[in-house]
């Protein structure tokens, strides 16, 4: 027998929108930080939080922080309201695309004119 009760019928979409946009933002942050660490030796060294792992440690630590902080902030702002979802979804997918593209070395090289 199917359960007729959804998990949260009629709940505002704000919390979901916050999680989705924050995930897109986290993915974009990962790509941007990876690109910055590759393009600039100074930034690359600054992102070396843990020497055995190198720049990757700073890139991923900061991307995760950006993702979690943005999720908390957006959730606090949107959890009790409905938000316009088409813009949120579009921005989230844009962030995801930025994450994929800016971690792809040939695309990084193209942007740096290598």
């Amino acid at each position, binding site marked *: *027998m*199917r*359960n007729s009760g*959804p*998990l*949260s*019928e*009629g*709940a505002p*979409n704000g*919390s*979901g*929108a916050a*999680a*989705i946009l*924050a*995930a897109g933002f*986290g*993915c974009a942050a*990962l*790509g941007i930080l*990876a690109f910055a660490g*590759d393009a600039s030796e100074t930034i690359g060294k600054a992102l070396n939080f*843990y020497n*055995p*792992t*190198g720049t*990757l*440690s700073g*890139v*991923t630590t900061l*991307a*995760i922080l950006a*993702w979690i902080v943005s999720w908390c902030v957006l959730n606090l702002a949107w959890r009790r309201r409905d938000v316009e*979802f*088409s813009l*949120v*979804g579009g921005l*989230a*997918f844009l962030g*995801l695309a930025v*994450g*994929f593209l800016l*971690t*792809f*070395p*040939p695309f990084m090289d193209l942007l740096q004119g290598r």
Partner: protein
Amino acid sequence: MEITTHDLWTVLHGMGFGALFMLAFSGALAEIYRAIAPGGASARERSLLSFYLAALVVLAWLTVFSGAYIVYPWYRAVPPAGATDLADYPRRLLLSSGKTSEWHNIGMEWKEHVSWLAPIAMTMVAYVTLKYGRSMAGHRGMRACVLGFALAAFVATGIAGAFGAFLNKYAPVRGGSVIILMEGE
């Protein structure tokens, strides 16, 4: 039959966590689709889905953390000056020849970053699916985002896994203490 600690961790990272994530994914995607479709899932199916999603999220995070903080430091170890045998220094071994250098410059450079998209995406997918469930049926945008990010997590893990397998073929991570599993005759 013996294995080194570095080999064991590499197998755990790739086959234990990463491959299990890939295997569990197809089942999870079908369950997610059912849970957010009109009609929804039964209470029992929702419990199964919760377990499935929690396992996927844990596996995704274990894969990237074990890769970045346990296996990757061995991969990028720096050989002593003048070393000619680079077998224990996979990154340097790959970069030592133009025939293998792109396995590092493209393969490892992409793998080490793109894999982190998977746990971020999968955590969001799990949260939204479990919070909204079938009420997403009437919300096309949210449903598209959840399924799109779930697929992206799978693709990111697939890229990382495929390059990981090739990298381990051309420049395996070796070394560490030897664990004897079984003695032969």
